[in-house]
């Protein structure tokens, strides 16, 4: 890194992702801009930021933007990065929302939107199956997947209940063993 970029430059770089990242996959876009294009982070720093972003609550992409922005220009950089990433999509969503509000009773629009929604569920199912491929094939993990699903869908368990009652068990079962040598 030669000279630290200004919050304005950071905002513009992230806004470019915010404008172009149709269809998701933001982490790949972030890597392209931060590591390859602008060289604001090296590969290892990026993976470190991603690790924090995935472990902590919040969206991975926004968390990575916060960490990268902070590293580049402190609090102003973090704000610039996150707003750059979020704002363009929100503006487009607002336009779509106004159009939706206006035309949702039109039968043509309603049918098209039903098709889009049906496709979106298919996308979420694919992402879930892909991310969980390893877990679905492991009996103990599969038991926790089914338990969580059944509790939420059939017993209407709240998210806090699942996270504070089920997750600790799952974590305890994966607890570090003394016998395992650390790498």
């Amino acid at each position, binding site marked *: 890194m030669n000279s630290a970029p200004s919050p304005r430059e950071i905002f513009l770089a992230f806004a470019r992702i915010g404008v172009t990242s149709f269809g998701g996959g933001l982490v790949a876009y972030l890597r392209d801009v931060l590591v390859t294009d602008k060289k604001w982070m090296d590969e290892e720093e990026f993976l470190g930021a991603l690790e924090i972003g995935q472990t902590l609550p919040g969206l991975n992409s926004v968390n990575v933007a916060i960490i990268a922005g902070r590293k580049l220009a402190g609090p102003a950089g973090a704000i610039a990065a996150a707003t750059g990433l979020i704002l363009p999509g929100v503006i487009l969503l*607002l336009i779509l929302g106004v159009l939706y509000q206006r035309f949702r009773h039109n039968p043509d629009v309603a049918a098209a939107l039903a098709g889009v929604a049906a496709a979106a569920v298919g996308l979420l199912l694919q992402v879930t199956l892909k991310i969980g491929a390893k877990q679905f094939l*492991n009996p103990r993990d599969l038991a926790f997947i089914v338990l969580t699903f059944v509790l939420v869908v059939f017993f209407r368990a709240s998210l806090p209940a699942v996270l504070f009652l089920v997750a600790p068990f799952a974590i305890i079962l994966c607890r570090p063993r003394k016998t395992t040598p650390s790498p």
Partner: protein
Amino acid sequence: MSDLVRILNVFCLLSLLAVGGGSAVLPEMERETVADHKWVTGEQFATIYSLGQMAPGPNMSMVALIGWQAAGTAGLLVALVAFYLPSSFLTYGASYVWDHFRGNPWRTAVQAGMAPVTIGLMLAGVHAVGKTAWINPEHSLRFNTTATLIGLAVTGILFAKRINPALLMLIGGAVGWFLLRGN
């Protein structure tokens, strides 16, 4: 006024509970915003979700449209800030002390234990949106069968081929307009 406070409460909580990315909070978000507070109908929730998946940027900016439906422009701003700020603050602070936890064996345990719970929550998210978009009791059997087939086709295509999901959702909209009209 009190609606804004409720929006603030709901989305702050979702922000801090959004472990493993955004999709894991979908079932809780659907319950809070549709059943509990009735800010949107199930159908609006499914549509807003799918618009959010199509728009560029982080996929959970859909909260802006829910806030907008609930309480206009102020609701939009409160929902956005409440959903993104708490987790971002946490990440900002944690990124200072993170290296301290590097190589801590419990971190791996948390990640391994949380994975199946996150997958279970995402699957419950498929149900939360799918019960409107795929198997809606208010629609005819033919409508639901067609919608489910559109969604499953998207799942299959995404497994077979690297293709931008936003494009597939547009195609889903076109197919929906063609097949779901007047059903």
